[in-house]
Every structure is written in structure tokens, then in C-alpha cells.
């Protein structure tokens, strides 16, 4: 027997298919606007550029709405347009040597960085629960700065996976790359991001990796 929830979903889906295109588009874009802008802001790292990007994406999506086969996949479809439009803007700007955007996909020889493992070095354990303390002191601005510092391809993947919650296959389809590439970019992107957070915490004096273990051991025994 079909659940009430399933019936409601089917009714909504059916209504969505019958709804006039303009009403459908205005409702969907209205619901996703904050999300699109949030992603665009982390991609562009500039408010005015993010607004331009989202406005362009909305215009492109509206003019291409007839190509959307299933209206229920609108969210993935418009984020795909966002990623592609962002990349085309970047390619346009790439003439400048100061903005190297290509990523060496095979160059992942850096050791994977784990924030958790760094927070669990013996000299930090006097905190009691260092990883919880660290997360409690972490500011939104710290995270934004760490995302903004990521190399291009990592940043796009991290934004789609972490901020927007798309699955690896969905991201692969959006970016036109194999799922393995998404996994690799995400893994390396996370390592870079965690390293940046650690370095920010060091710079802010929140952690001190030069503290001698012997000093801490005395406090830890209380």
C-alpha cells in the first residue's frame, strides 16, 4: 500500500509536471536562490562576482528549461549549469598568469593531512577533549577562508559535496568526470582544507605545536 508520504510526493510531482513553466521556474529558483548564492560565493570568493554568476545561471537555466526532462531533477540540473558557467568564466579569465586554475590530478604526492590526528598529538591532550574544543572555537569565517584557499578543482568539488550535499555520482555527472576523480579531488580537497584550518589555528595561537610534552604531562596528571 502506498504511504501517505509517497502519495503526496507523487501528487506534488504530477502537479509540478503540469505547472506552467514560468510559475515552476520562479518557485524553484526562489527556493534555491540562497543555496545557489552560497555556493557561488565560495566559488567566486567575491560577492559581486557571485551575484553576476547566479544571475547568469538563472538566465541560462530559464532559456534552457525546455531541455530539462524531469522537473524533479531541477536542483542537480541548475547546479550543473552553475558549475559549468563558473568554469567558463574562469577559462575566460585564465589568460592572466596570476590565476593558474589547472590542477595536476596525478600530483597527489603530499601526505594526507588529518586535523583529528594533529589535535591528538600528546602535547595537546591536556585539553581533555581537544577535537571538541577545537570545533567549538571554529568560526564560520575560519571555514570560509579555508575553503577559499583551496585549489580550483578541489574547491568546486568540496562546495558541491560538503555545502550542497550532492553524491559522488551526481557531482561526477555535473562536472563530466569519472566518479573516481570526484573521490580523489574530495579526498585531497579535505586534506588541504584541514591543513589550512590547522595552520589558521596555529597562527591564531589556538593550538601550539611547539609545546614540550613534558610540561603538559604535569598538567595532565591533575
Amino acid at each position, binding site marked *: 500500500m502506498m504511504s501517505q508520504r509517497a502519495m503526496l510526493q507523487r501528487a506534488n510531482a504530477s502537479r509540478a509536471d503540469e505547472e506552467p513553466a514560468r510559475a515552476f521556474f520562479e518557485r524553484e529558483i526562489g527556493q534555491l536562490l*540562497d543555496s545557489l548564492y552560497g555556493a557561488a560565493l565560495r566559488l567566486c570568493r567575491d560577492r559581486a562576482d557571485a551575484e553576476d554568476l547566479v544571475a547568469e545561471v538563472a538566465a541560462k537555466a530559464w532559456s534552457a528549461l525546455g531541455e530539462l526532462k524531469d522537473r524533479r531533477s531541477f536542483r542537480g540540473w541548475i547546479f550543473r549549469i552553475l558549475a559549468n558557467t563558473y568554469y567558463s568564466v574562469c577559462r575566460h579569465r585564465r589568460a592572466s598568469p596570476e590565476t593558474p586554475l589547472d590542477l595536476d590530478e596525478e600530483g597527489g604526492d603530499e601526505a594526507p593531512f588529518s586535523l583529528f590526528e594533529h589535535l591528538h598529538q600528546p602535547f595537546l591532550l591536556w585539553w581533555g577533549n581537544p577535537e571538541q574544543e577545537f570545533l567549538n572555537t571554529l568560526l564560520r569565517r575560519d571555514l570560509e577562508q579555508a575553503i577559499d584557499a583551496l585549489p580550483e578543482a578541489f574547491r568546486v568539488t568540496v562546495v558541491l559535496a560538503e555545502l550542497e550535499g550532492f553524491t559522488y555520482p551526481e557531482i561526477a555527472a555535473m562536472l563530466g568526470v569519472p566518479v573516481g576523480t570526484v573521490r580523489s579531488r574530495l579526498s585531497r580537497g579535505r586534506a588541504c582544507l584541514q591543513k589550512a584550518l590547522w595552520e589558521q589555528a596555529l597562527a591564531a595561537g589556538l593550538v601550539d605545536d611547539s609545546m614540550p610534552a613534558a610540561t603538559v604531562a604535569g598538567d595532565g596528571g591533575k
Partner: protein
Amino acid sequence: MMNEANDISCEEALTRVFAYLDRDLDERARGEMERHLHRCRGCFSRTEFERRLKAQLRDTGRIDAPAALQTRIGQVLRRF
């Protein structure tokens, strides 16, 4: 009673943390991971740390679009 034969090592569990949190594991691998997390405090703490960090990252995407952008998009739609 725990079935030792089906348990994974901490080393293996740590390679699966993000795939587990990202729902990228198949049913069997997810089951193995959950059993391991149930009995291993260290891997559980690590997974919870990454889960909380992911949640804080997700929050950075939650931001109100400027009213000017909403107006601008409305104008774009009206032009077509």
C-alpha cells in the same frame, strides 16, 4: 555476540570514514563500519569529529542571497 570474522580493523575503518559519512559505501561495507564504530571508541570519536566538521562546513553554504539579486533575477525573467 560479536562476530570477530566480520569485524574490520581500525586501519580499514579509518579509510572508510568519509565514504561512510558521504553514503558512498554499499550495504555490506556500511554494516561492517557501523559494527566497528559500535565497539571502537577511537574510530567512533574520529568519525564524530569528521561528522561535526562536515556539518559546520555545510552551514557556510547557508547564506541569504542579497535582495538586489532577487530583484535582478526577477527582471531577467520578465524580459523573456
